[in-house]
């Protein structure tokens, strides 16, 4: 992905777009942030946010004509938020003055003509920028332009205090300045480095006739016909009158002057000044309509309680559609735009020195829900997959992330499990059943039953193909390994005379659909729906069961509908959760999330499991096992089809561990070879003859550490053969180790070849120089 594509991708994530209120405000005041603080009663924080961007806040907050309110998203569910009233409440109650900023003073000296709102804002901003400012007032006291506002709204004392703040910042005020002299303004422009003229003072246009050279004002910069003189603020001449627009003119003039004295472009990158458009999307589906909080004192301000209540009505506009629905996105405390930057930050990837970034890349389940709920279709799938491929390419992929899953895949495509056979006594099979490695590992007996049923019901022959579809290599970003896997699948399919493939696993189905388009495929569920389970539907069982669509079935509406029809045919009442069908979420296994980030995967599984009030049913063996680990029960649909629903024990079937899965697959192959295909196929490695007694406690620890029984057998086999073992005099146990590939396994044991007892097992990836390996 090049920089241009990257920017285009980032641009599509709209979370950082301003809320409607801020976009409509000519000064882009952070109303959302300010109101959020009031809602939590953090008044000082609210004042800080308000005054970060609002000049002369004690005046402006009281007289602002709030263009934010008519556009407020809240009006779609009740009334707009009373932003203006909240601002008044905040400035009146805190009664604070802004402190002079500590910025280095500059040498230039700016004249600000008038003491209307735009002049005060210009002076304020210039002082904040470190410029030296002299304010010139034609009358004997400043601020008379504000007398158009009633005293109860804007007291004279407030105006005087705010002007005193400007003086305290270093602004020099000169009153009774004679401005009517000929060429006065030109002279002023010569005496000062730049001049701002506030036309909103009311009296100034009379004092300085336009004939003095000010022919019109350039709208973007507020430059006049005299070099270095800028003018703005229409005051009463603006129809309708708008204090906030006058204030924005003052800011615009100050920005121009700042650029003018630094001799940089007056016009570059100013398109975002003033009110702007925003692309921010905020979902208000679940927002309950509420009216504006009324003021007890109609002429006065909100009491604290009223203000807090009103502030709490603010929906704090933001998108976060993806984050709201994904624990992974939530846990990394950001949103796609930020993640894209982090992942594609060239340095991070080149140096590969960012554990957090690597975890971000590797923890995504690649389920694609984010892309479905995003208003702009941004999906983390492509972002994370590309990130993983880059890590692999540069040799920076942490070995601990996916090695275990890839070892599993290699087992599944080895002689131990892989098998391709036509229907017994047939030369050719029209169909091939591909149960997938996880169903074979989780409930091999269902594979046998389905295969038998399919052979009974389908004519033309049904072959059997046991192996892995290579999805783990795809998820791990191992492109070469995945390509090789796909080629093997293609060869197997060609050698089997190009049969129609039947898939029990939605992931295998997806891999074939996307990467082997020449293969004719059908899901087992659509096929069973088509050929039927029995001649007439089962009577109602009066059992409600909640359906979990596996994430890899997301866009397979036909498959999803077939599963629901099958369940109803079996007599179940099917319940849906909010996130199902196209919007289904991952169980925590997908994309190798559970391999790379087990704690997160457990949380995801628990959150999903808790979404149902009844037992779950699903049609992916991995989803079934993952959802069953908590206190919820989950059934694989095959459990319900072949066990019959009267036998509810199917739902509570034990979840096999990693070792059991290997064992189940190897035994399935042996049984199929012996029972169905009439071949002797028992392939037992010598180390597998090691007989072990393992307590359930040790078994659990092994599961947690991802140590397989066969790993332990290998260590003991090696130790017994070579004598490489260490004796503990205190316990009488032996300790031995072996490193078959990339992990060193340690075993603490006793016993004789008739039976060994295992006391403990642990492992590490670090390699000890000179240790034993295969």
């Amino acid at each position, binding site marked *: 992905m090049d920089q241009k594509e990257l920017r285009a991708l980032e641009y599509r994530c709209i979370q950082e777009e301003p809320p409607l209120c801020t976009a409509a405000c000519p000064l882009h005041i952070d109303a959302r942030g300010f109101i959020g603080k009031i809602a939590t009663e953090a008044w000082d924080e609210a004042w800080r946010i308000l005054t970060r961007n609002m000049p002369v806040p004690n005046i402006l907050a009281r007289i602002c004509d709030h263009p934010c309110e008519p556009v407020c998203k809240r009006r779609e569910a009740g009334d707009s938020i009373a932003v203006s009233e909240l601002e008044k409440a905040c400035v009146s109650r805190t009664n604070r003055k802004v402190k002079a900023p500590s910025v280095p003073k500059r040498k230039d000296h700016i004249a600000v003509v008038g003491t209307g709102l735009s002049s005060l804002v210009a002076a304020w901003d210039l002082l904040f920028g470190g410029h030296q400012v002299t304010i010139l007032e034609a009358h004997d006291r400043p601020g008379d332009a504000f007398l158009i506002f009633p005293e109860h709204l804007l007291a004279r004392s407030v105006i005087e205090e705010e002007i005193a703040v400007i003086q305290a910042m270093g602004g020099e005020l000169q009153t009774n300045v004679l401005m009517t002299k000929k060429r006065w303004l030109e002279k002023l422009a010569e005496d000062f480095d730049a001049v701002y003229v506030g036309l909103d003072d009311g009296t100034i246009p009379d004092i300085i006739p336009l004939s003095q050279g000010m022919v019109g004002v350039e709208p973007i910069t507020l430059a006049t016909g005299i070099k270095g003189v800028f003018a703005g603020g229409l005051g009463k001449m603006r129809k309708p009158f708008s204090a906030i627009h006058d204030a924005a003119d003052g800011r615009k003039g100050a920005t121009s002057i700042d650029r003018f004295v630094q001799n940089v472009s007056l016009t570059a990158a100013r398109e975002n000044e003033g009110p702007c458009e925003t692309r921010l999307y905020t979902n208000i589906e679940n927002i309950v309509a509420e009216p504006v909080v009324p003021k007890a004192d109609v002429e006065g301000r909100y009491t604290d309680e009223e203000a807090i209540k009103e502030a709490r009505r603010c929906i704090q506009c933001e998108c976060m559609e993806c984050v709201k629905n994904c624990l992974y996105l939530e846990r990394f405390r950001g949103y796609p735009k930020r993640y894209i930057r982090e992942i594609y930050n060239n340095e991070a990837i080149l140096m*590969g*020195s*960012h*554990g*957090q970034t*690597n975890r971000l890349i590797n923890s995504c389940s690649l389920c694609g829900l984010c892309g479905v709920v995003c208003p702009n279709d941004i999906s983390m799938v492509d972002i994370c997959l590309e990130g993983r491929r880059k890590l692999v390419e540069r040799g920076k992929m*942490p*070995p*601990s992330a996916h090695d275990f899953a890839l070892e599993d895949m290699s087992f599944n495509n080895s002689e131990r499990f892989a098998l391709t056979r036509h229907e017994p006594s047939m030369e050719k099979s029209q169909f091939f059943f591909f149960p997938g490695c996880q169903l074979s590992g989780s409930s091999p007996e269902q594979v046998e039953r389905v295969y038998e049923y399919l052979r009974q019901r389908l004519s033309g022959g049904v072959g059997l193909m046991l192996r892995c579809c290579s999805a783990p290599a795809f998820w791990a970003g191992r492109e070469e390994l995945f390509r090789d896997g796909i080629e093997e699948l293609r060869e197997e399919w060609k050698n089997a005379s190009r049969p129609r493939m039947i898939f029990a696993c939605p992931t295998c189905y997806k891999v074939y659909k996307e990467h082997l388009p020449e293969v004719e495929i059908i899901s087992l569920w659509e096929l069973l729906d088509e050929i039927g389970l029995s001649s007439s539907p089962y009577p109602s069982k009066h059992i409600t069961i909640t359906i979990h669509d596996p994430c890899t079935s997301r866009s397979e509406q036909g498959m999803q509908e077939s599963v629901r029809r099958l369940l109803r045919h079996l007599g179940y009442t099917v319940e849906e959760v909010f996130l199902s069908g196209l919007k289904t979420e991952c169980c925590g296994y997908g994309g190798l999330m559970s391999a790379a980030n087990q704690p997160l995967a457990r949380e995801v599984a628990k959150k999903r499991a808790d979404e149902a009030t009844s037992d779950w049913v699903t049609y992916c063996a991995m989803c079934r096992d993952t959802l069953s680990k908590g206190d919820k029960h989950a059934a694989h649909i095959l459990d319900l089809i072949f066990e019959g629903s009267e036998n509810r024990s199917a739902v509570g079937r034990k979840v096999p561990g990693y070792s059991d899965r290997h064992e189940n697959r190897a035994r399935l192959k042996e049984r199929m070879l012996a029972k169905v295909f009439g071949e002797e196929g028992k392939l037992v490695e010598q180390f597998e003859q090691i007989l072990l007694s393992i307590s359930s406690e040790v078994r659990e620890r092994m599961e947690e550490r991802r140590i397989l029984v066969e790993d332990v057998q290998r260590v003991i086999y090696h130790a017994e053969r*070579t*004598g*490489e*073992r*260490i*004796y*503990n*005099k*205190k316990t009488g146990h*032996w*300790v031995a*180790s072996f490193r078959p590939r990339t992990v*060193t396994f*340690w075993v603490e044991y006793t016993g004789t070849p008739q039976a060994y007892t295992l006391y*403990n097992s*642990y*492992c*590490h*990836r*670090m*390699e*000890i*120089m*000179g*240790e034993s390996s295969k």
Partner: protein
Amino acid sequence: MTVRDQQKEKNEWTCTRCGIDLELAKVQITYVGCGFTIDALRCPQCHLVLVTEDMAVGKLAEAERVLEDK
């Protein structure tokens, strides 16, 4: 387990093949292209090294994480 603990325990461990007690030694270990030295019990004769459970799940696991994040 601290080095002192290991020393205290050292007489508990015997190399079965050589029939002698393990002794504390500097042992070279490597991971993702980085190598360093740790203190571990080792057979002085055949150099068979003992990694205890505490070391594996503690110091070594931590070092693996750090090196993977590098």
